């Protein structure tokens, strides 16, 4: 009764084609953005920002990037961790080589560098498909991490191979390094996430996105109707790696502050982001948010509940946490193989008919 299209009239094609055709959705979206940018910064504390919200925002960007590649273009990739590392090391090299360069440009340029690397490793996708492509991107994962840990130039010859982020300011406020406040880091990540989601949503709605989906659904048919597979696949790799690179750069600059390729961007990162995409929902922007939420925020909330609120021993809680999250993943996938976003879609359908289900 509250949530439906009846009475929501469109008088132009532009209005009919907008991202959120339903007024309810649109309102919710605007409210969420206003809440994220206008309300949260006044209430967020250090713990919430640095331990929960910032990683959630950053992983969501990574999941968005991977979702473009896997969910929209159908190219399986296991190289996400390495591409995040590329973003992180690019940001490190750029910001130490040009200390006066604005951090926003550093992060965007890190994304561009990653896009280039992503395209290079996307080339095999023109010849191989499916699981074989996954193996090729797995090679990217191992090769890039090996490169970043063994080549001293990448970590500025530091004796341990760790890269550390110096303090950088934006509009006079430090956003990276230890003196950065929770709010500044949060705002930077939130702005990048909103921009990334906007970019991803609009790209996937347009010509490019339709080409990707055509390739995903049946590449031979797509080629016959005039989609250039080279352009479509490589552009998917480029956009995907760009977003993943941005998330890697933010992960290092804002969140961790010091990182090391093997430890922070290992194969487990690739799998983590892949699971986010699968659990959230392939080919869905909202799915990336939901998947990241379940896998990043879920464990921390469980920990807070079990250890801080119930006072359980930390090791028992840590083991339980793994079991509960694992069980949740299986449960969700059994109940809804298309991910959390499909669950949300079902709820929406029901809401539209409510309270007259027949």
């Amino acid at each position, binding site marked *: 009764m509250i949530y439906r299209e009846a009475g929501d009239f469109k008088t132009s094609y532009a209005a009919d084609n907008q991202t959120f055709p339903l007024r309810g959705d649109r309102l919710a979206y605007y409210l969420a953005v206003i809440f994220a940018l206008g309300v949260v910064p006044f209430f967020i504390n250090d713990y919430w920002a640095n331990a929960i919200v910032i990683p959630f925002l950053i992983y969501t960007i990574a999941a968005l990037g991977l979702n473009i590649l896997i969910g929209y273009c159908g190219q399986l990739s296991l190289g996400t961790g390495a591409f995040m590392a590329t973003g992180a090391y690019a940001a490190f090299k750029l910001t130490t080589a040009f200390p006066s360069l604005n951090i926003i440009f550093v992060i965007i340029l890190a994304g561009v560098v990653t896009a280039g690397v992503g395209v290079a490793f996307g080339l095999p996708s023109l010849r191989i498909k499916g699981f074989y492509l996954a193996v090729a991107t797995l090679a990217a994962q191992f090769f890039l991490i090996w490169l970043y*840990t063994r080549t001293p130039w990448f970590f500025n010859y530091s004796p341990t191979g760790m890269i550390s982020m110096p303090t950088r300011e934006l509009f006079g406020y430090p956003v990276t*390094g230890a003196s950065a406040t929770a709010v500044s880091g949060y705002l930077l990540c939130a702005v990048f996430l909103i921009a990334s989601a906007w970019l991803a949503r609009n790209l996937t709605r347009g010509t490019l996105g339709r080409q990707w989906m055509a390739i995903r659904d049946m590449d031979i048919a797509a080629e016959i109707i005039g989609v250039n597979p080279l352009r479509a696949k490589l552009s998917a790799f480029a956009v995907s790696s760009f977003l993943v690179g941005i998330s890697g750069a933010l992960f290092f600059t804002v969140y961790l*502050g010091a990182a090391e390729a093997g430890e922070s961007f290992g194969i487990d990162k690739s799998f983590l982001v892949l699971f986010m995409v699968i659990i959230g929902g392939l080919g869905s922007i909202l799915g990336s948010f939901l998947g990241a939420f379940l896998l990043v925020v879920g464990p921390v909330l469980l920990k807070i509940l079990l250890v801080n609120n119930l006072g359980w021993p930390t090791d028992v809680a840590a083991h339980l946490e793994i079991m509960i999250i694992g069980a949740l993943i299986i449960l969700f996938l059994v109940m809804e193989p298309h991910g959390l976003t499909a669950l949300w879609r079902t709820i929406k359908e029901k809401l539209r008919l409510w309270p007259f289900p027949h």
Partner: protein
Amino acid sequence: MMNMTRMAAVLAVTMTAAAPAVAQSLHFPMLNYRTGPFGPNGMAFADGYQDYLTLINERDGGIGGVPIRMTECETAYNTERGVECYQGIRGDSPLVIQPLSTGITYQLIPRTMEDQVPMHTMGYGRTSAVNGEVFNWTFNYPGTYWDGASVIINYLLEENDGSLEGKKIVLLYHNSAYGREPIPTLTRLAEHHGYELITIGVDSPGQEQGNQWLQIRRERPDYVTMWGWGVMNAVAIQEAANIRFPMENFIGVWWSGSEQDVRPAGAGAHGYKSLAMHGTGRDYPIYDDIQEYVIDRGLAAGTGDEVGTVLYSRGMYASMLAVEAAKKAQEIHGVEEITPAMMRDGMANLVITEELMEELGLPGFGPAFEVTCQNHGGTGEAMIQQWDAESGTWSLITDWIAPNRDLIMEMVMEDSLAYAAENNIEPQCLERSGG
């Protein structure tokens, strides 16, 4: 579109209660790892750390009459979890942070500096934190990786009548910030002493080392040194036994010399050596008290089966040094309820003498040392211990061996000043805190 996530976030906010600041207690947080690939090692250390603090509470009623409040946070040796743990405790006036992970240490060095919380990385972490003028809030006494590397070389020099000319030494290292730490020292020392250094990395966690040992077999080194942790140690010792590498020429750092590391290789591990930064075993008077006040009262941490092992001893040692620093801080400031800033003063002026160790029930357990602003790293002395597979015990085969401190201090100055320049730090000693 995002309303579901927001709703969940709001729910979560209401679910959490902020940790209340309890008055009249000294907060000693514990960043432990009892799970994950390094859990078996982390568990022993955590038990020792906690048991000693429990002992102080039970026997002495706390430090200077103020009870110790312990909080535990599980990091699973994961840097992201470590950051989360630190964020959770930093507002709760933690007296000293001991992350037991070089990776987490690197994350926390700038953060603890900013928040003015002292951090003690005993025998791990960033070696150049020895320079207390740059790293005001980070301490790594009584020894560092660079000291450890130098002690091993000095020991080998002694074994070889003062010359390592033409010898071949392999460094088998955990391919992480931790494992790479000794490389610069060993490289410099190679120039001095004329041995050939071959570095071979093992990716974490290190279950698969077939290639590395094939390479070692091909190179036929005179000695193998190891910077390993967790399962990597056990696998390396097993592999060395498999290729019949003479065990007495295989020397690990202090993190590669615990019971868990040698037991899996059985008799093959007999003769394996490692550095020891402290004594091991239950032959110290302190264990009578631990038995009486902690174990017999059912207060032992974990399952209690780690008591007296190498890593348990290390946890206990770390805990003992923290308690002594707190006592020192109370003495300097004349108040019982110290703040993290006062604790820093206590750590920066800590003096450990042989008499004090004896008084604490740990005679000869650790080296005597003095912390100063210019030297947060103690003396860097260590002993060599050797594994006896038949009796299943470690025995100390040398006295304290001193490292080549001149060279190390030179390297420390280079690295720490570079850090200071990168981060706009003016090197200076901190004044004592007012309060």
